[in-house]
């Protein structure tokens, strides 16, 4: 992380020191965190999050063939490209009027489950845990490490680490055994993904109407054999996470306030149920609720809605601190949805991206390329700055409260989620239960990630059962033919690994007239909106206590970084732009059917 310190300023009675981390490391994209810290009282007083990369896929998708949208939007991200493809396929299915064959849905679900397992495991064990490893704790909290040496790990019989310090050593980068095993596992989960979606991370076999994956018994059993090995690892991982995070609560009273913010969570749902899902907007409320991760919005711990139509109509894209001109007065593409509900001019269906590059002004002006997505709560007329809790926290919370998911492997109880994992190589059957925590803070976001790895693995067993059931009956249908309409609209709702993902599409003359992908990090990393409401990173960091033992001169900002990383930040979804129309590089690509000069 890059840290810069500026001269202290005195505001009222408090002496504030400006500190910045720009760019924040161990994430993709360009995220800067600018804070003002009161070292005397060990508190962060103010925080602003910025991104210095223009986000404009919506600009160059216009005028393109809508069938290309899945392949283009996949390139938004080198981490969760497949989530974009999947979400784009969902949006296109709605626009073209497609109901995908059930076998194709199971293949999509299996591919996405593998992606959750892959991405969450590698992020948690190889990137998040660097902030919790022995080396880091020695540098930031030596007193805590001493305590960890003498604290026995309650679940040592499961993960084999005797003390908490042993756990911290096991996640030391490059030398710790859990760190290295997680890297090996990432290969396995990627293979699982490729069996279903052809290629990681830009799928080659997903397109509207279904998939090109040939549904053979072997492709599912190949997946299953890898899944069983991975679940063996997950059975160790979940109790290890519990031990580590519980220790932080016990050893540092008050640590629950780190990264704590009002409970404002959004989940757009994942894993379609082919028995219910026909991709029609008119029935979206029903098939949305039938998803195997329930969509929902949670405000102050209460589930406000599980209805995807409500969720869709409440989305507002606000400006306030972003480098864009307002698009009010530009063309409205969708004035009412297919059910006759009015659609707001600030809804993604009606957004026009008008960039206005300018100098960053953190004090009184604009400071980020990220806009401020908000959800309009019609009960209170508030524009809520929802966060995703890094993805898993919101997914588990919404699923737990809704009480809808009931499968042999995952059951929602209304206040918890029960996960059943079958027997594997080193362990017998294991039952895990994620209980709704009292707070949405740094440690709970991280803990939920470990549980969601188990959730995705458990659901994958179910999807394999259902897929093989069809294959054994002789079903081979994985694709449904369709025609692209002259005009149409569609929306796709999915969960990218780190949270909510929506794609909104408008087709005119068989071309894209408007297309807006909204991934999770624009929600989490959003700057202050026109009402002055801070974005979730800013909100979570502002006002949090500091537990780092270093003084101001040697300050690393570990508590701040743990908080920002607990959201699983990921900002590659910008577009790098060249100015002046300069040709950077020209090369020739020989293709069957003629050569094409390509400018890069």
């Amino acid at each position: 992380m890059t840290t810069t310190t500026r001269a202290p300023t005195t505001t009222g009675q408090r002496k504030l020191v400006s500190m910045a981390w720009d760019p924040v490391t161990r994430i993709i994209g360009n995220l800067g965190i600018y804070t003002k810290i009161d070292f005397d009282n060990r508190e962060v007083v103010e925080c602003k999050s910025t991104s210095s990369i223009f986000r404009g896929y919506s600009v160059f998708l216009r005028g393109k063939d809508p069938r290309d949208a899945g392949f283009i939007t996949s390139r938004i991200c080198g981490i969760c490209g497949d989530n974009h493809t999947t979400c784009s396929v969902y949006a296109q299915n709605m626009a073209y009027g497609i109901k995908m064959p059930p076998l194709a849905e199971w293949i999509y679900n299996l591919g996405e489950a593998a992606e959750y397992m892959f991405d969450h495991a590698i992020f948690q064990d190889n990137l998040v845990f660097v902030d919790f490893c022995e080396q880091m704790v020695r540098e930031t909290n030596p007193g805590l490490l001493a305590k960890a040496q003498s604290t026995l790990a309650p679940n040592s019989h499961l993960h084999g680490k005797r003390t908490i310090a042993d756990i911290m050593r096991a996640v030391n980068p490059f030398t710790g055994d859990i760190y290295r095993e997680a890297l090996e596992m990432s290969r396995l989960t990627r293979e699982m993904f490729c069996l279903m979606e052809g290629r990681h991370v830009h799928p080659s076999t997903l397109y509207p109407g279904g998939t090109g994956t040939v549904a053979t018994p072997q492709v599912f059993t190949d997946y299953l054999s890898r899944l069983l090995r991975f679940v063996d690892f997950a059975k160790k991982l979940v109790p290890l996470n519990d031990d580590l995070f519980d220790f932080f609560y016990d050893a540092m009273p008050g640590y629950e306030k780190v990264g704590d913010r009002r409970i404002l969570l959004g989940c757009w749902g994942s894993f379609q149920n082919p028995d219910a899902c026909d991709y029609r907007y008119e029935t979206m409320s029903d098939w949305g609720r039938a998803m195997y991760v329930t969509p929902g919005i949670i405000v102050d711990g209460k589930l406000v809605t599980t209805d995807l139509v409500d969720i869709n109509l409440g989305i507002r894209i606000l400006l306030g601190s972003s480098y864009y001109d307002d698009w009010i007065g530009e063309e409205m593409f969708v004035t009412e949805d297919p059910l006759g509900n009015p659609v707001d001019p600030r809804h993604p269906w009606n957004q026009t991206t008008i960039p206005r590059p300018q100098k960053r002004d953190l004090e009184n002006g604009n400071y980020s390329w990220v806009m401020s997505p908000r959800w309009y709560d019609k009960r209170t007329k508030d524009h809520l700055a929802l966060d995703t809790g890094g993805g898993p926290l919101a997914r588990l919370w919404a699923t737990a409260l809704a009480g809808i998911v009931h499968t042999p492997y995952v059951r929602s109880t209304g206040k918890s989620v029960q996960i059943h994992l079958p027997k594997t190589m080193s362990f017998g059957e294991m039952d895990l239960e994620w209980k709704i925590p009292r707070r949405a803070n740094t440690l709970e976001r991280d803990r939920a990630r470990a549980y969601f790895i188990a959730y995705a693995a458990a659901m994958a067993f179910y999807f394999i059962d259902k897929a093989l059931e069809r294959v054994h009956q002789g079903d081979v249908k994985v694709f449904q033919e369709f025609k692209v309409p002259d005009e149409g609209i569609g929306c796709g709702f999915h969960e990218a690994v780190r949270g909510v993902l929506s794609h909104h599409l408008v087709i005119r003359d068989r071309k894209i007239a408007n297309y807006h992908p909204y991934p999770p990090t624009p929600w989490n990393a959003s700057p202050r909106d026109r009402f002055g409401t801070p974005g979730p990173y800013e909100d979570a960091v502002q006002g949090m206590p500091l537990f780092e033992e270093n003084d101001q001169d040697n300050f690393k900002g570990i508590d701040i970084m743990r908080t920002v990383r607990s959201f699983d930040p990921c900002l590659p979804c910008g577009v790098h732009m060249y100015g002046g129309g300069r040709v950077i590089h020209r090369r020739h690509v020989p293709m069957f059917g003629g050569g094409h000069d390509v400018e890069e």
Partner: protein
Amino acid sequence: MLRNRTGNNHDKTKVIANVVVGKPDVKPSAPSHVPGVFQGNHPHAGERGKGIHEVDGAYAEGTARRSTGIRPKAHDVIDPRMPRLSPA
């Protein structure tokens, strides 16, 4: 919203909102326009799959014709009650 920067047809540079986007070099469908090559996205392309018989909207059966054009019936299931599994 899509309009030429200079307003004439010779300059294919477009301005979308206030962003100048370059002239596209390649048509997305260029390779599929070679005569004799199937266009994957051609209407009814899915019907060309030999040996796949749609039973209803959600279910289709495959026969040995999917795998071979040489005496495919001889390679089919020997008992009609058996499922026809995909080749792998």
